[in-house]
């Protein structure tokens, strides 16, 4: 779990103290009841009552004890459930706060890095010491920095909008194959020294889907970018498979990248979540891309999950999208 921060520490101490107090009081109460029972029987014995009367008193006391004991146990059970729920909320809150701190650090890094690069390039363009031909190589890189910033701002604004009013879709018919192909084509923009091989499996020439093209494109882009970012191999292999039936479209995107362990597999779609410690996070990002991706797919009444056999074993994103309005031109595979 994340390192405790001061406010949560206080909440945890308060929670443990109150739980301890409640349990201690319940135990004290039971002990007191047992003592009273003993005293009552003893008193009746001392008064020289008949054995039958003493037995009757004893029976009555035992029934009362059982009843009160059950009440006590029920009370303890309620306290236990309450304590567990509060504990779970506190841990969740703690994890969210930690993720938000990481998000802030990541965003600072992601905002300032292209800004730094742009400032360096602008200084370079102004400099008399730099030859003109070198300056000409800078322009595309400046544009690349602007694009990075634009994308980051878009993601943050999108996440903010989503928080406020959910994802608002603008649905229409569009060519799904064309959308995936153009998302894959954008991979060329990733300046990388790695070789990239893309295998398209069962891809129809065109497949008309009813949904928000812009949003879905953003979702697929986030997945594809992630598979590329977390791949250190010289030869990156990306396999995109397509399948559709009357009710659903199934897309599978798998790679030969660094893979995911069980813990990260469960969490990568959480908002602000990023794999690794923020100081060592090897790739740019804010922990919003896959979160938005899942929300977009959910808004299309679909689902997404990730499979991985562990570190070094690559990942496989499996996406299912519901066909809300089918199109007569589609041939089903």
């Amino acid at each position, binding site marked *: 779990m994340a390192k405790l921060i001061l406010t949560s520490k206080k909440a945890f101490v308060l929670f443990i103290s109150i739980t301890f107090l409640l349990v201690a009081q319940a135990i004290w109460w039971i002990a007191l009841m047992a003592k009273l029972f003993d005293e009552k029987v003893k008193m009746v014995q001392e008064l020289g009552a008949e054995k039958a009367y003493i037995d009757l008193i004893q029976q009555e006391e035992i029934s009362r004890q059982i009843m009160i004991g059950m009440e006590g146990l029920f009370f303890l059970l309620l306290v236990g459930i309450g304590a567990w729920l509060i504990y779970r909320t506190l841990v969740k809150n703690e994890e969210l706060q930690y993720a938000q701190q990481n998000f802030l*650090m990541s965003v*600072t*890094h992601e*905002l*300032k*890095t*292209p*800004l*730094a*690069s*742009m*400032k*360096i*390039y602008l*200084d*370079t363009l102004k*400099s008399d*010491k*730099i030859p003109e031909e*070198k300056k000409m190589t*800078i322009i595309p*890189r400046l544009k*690349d*920095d602007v694009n990075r910033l634009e994308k980051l701002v878009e993601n943050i604004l999108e996440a903010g909008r989503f928080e406020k009013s959910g994802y608002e879709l603008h649905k229409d018919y569009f060519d799904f194959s064309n959308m995936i192909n153009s998302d894959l084509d954008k991979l060329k923009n990733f*300046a990388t020294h790695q070789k990239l091989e893309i295998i398209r499996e069962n891809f129809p020439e065109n497949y008309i889907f009813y949904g928000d093209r812009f949003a879905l494109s953003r979702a697929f882009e986030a997945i594809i970018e992630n598979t590329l970012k977390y791949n250190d191999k010289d030869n990156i292999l990306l396999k995109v498979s397509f399948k559709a039936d009357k009710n659903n479209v199934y897309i599978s995107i798998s790679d030969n990248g660094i893979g995911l362990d069980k813990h990260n597999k469960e969490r990568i779609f959480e908002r602000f979540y990023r794999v690794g410690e*923020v*100081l*060592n*996070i*090897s*790739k740019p990002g804010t922990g919003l891309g896959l979160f938005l991706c899942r929300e977009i797919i959910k808004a299309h009444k679909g689902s997404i999950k990730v499979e991985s056999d562990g570190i070094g074993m690559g990942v496989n994103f499996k996406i299912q999208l519901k066909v809300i309005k089918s199109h007569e031109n589609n041939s089903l595979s």
Partner: protein
Amino acid sequence: MKTILLVEDDPNVADGLIINLEADGYQVVHVDNGNQVLNEFGKGNFDLVLMDIMLPGTDGLTLTKEIRKTGSVIPVIFITARDQTDQKVEGLLAGGDDYITKPFDVSELLARIQGIFRRQAWLDPGEETENEYLFDGRSINFTTYTAKGPGGEVQLTRKECMVMKYLIERTGKVVSRDQLLDAVWGYHTYPTNRTIDNFILRLRKIFEDDPKQSVYIETIRGVGYRFTKLAHDGDKQ
């Protein structure tokens, strides 16, 4: 020609810096992954390291600590997006000589690099003669960064050497904390000039018989410090 090891994972920032550093007459070796830095550092004869902090693999703070552990006193300038005061202090305590936050002006970075080389030249002019100062059975060597006091020989950091050299050059005169900051760090934006006090504390532990009853490095209340030597015979620099 001075050689700079540039540790930066962002290709655009790195390219921009390489263009400018080379135009300013430096040779640049670029590493983009924290895991390759120590290996590269061991191979080359570098004069300065420009170190990003958030890196793939080992982070810049850990790398700087590792470099210092090898006994190297090479100047390290952090170039990072982390701009909080406590983050700057963390960087300087890790062994950094300077800290510049992104985005920055290239001219400012180049000036800081020049400043570091200038101060280094002041500390160790590289003359044939032994660059050592002796006083009352104590000594400090500005070439090897070693000092000898009542407790024996100790290794100093470059900053500690610079503080001592500045004080020694002004023996008997009061030096303010701001003067020390300006001379040793080269700028006034260091988190707090009280940090100087920590350096003085350590130097007193090395040179004084009783650090609480300071004889050589006196505190002048509200102003700064004064270096005084007792014996005059046999001193040389």
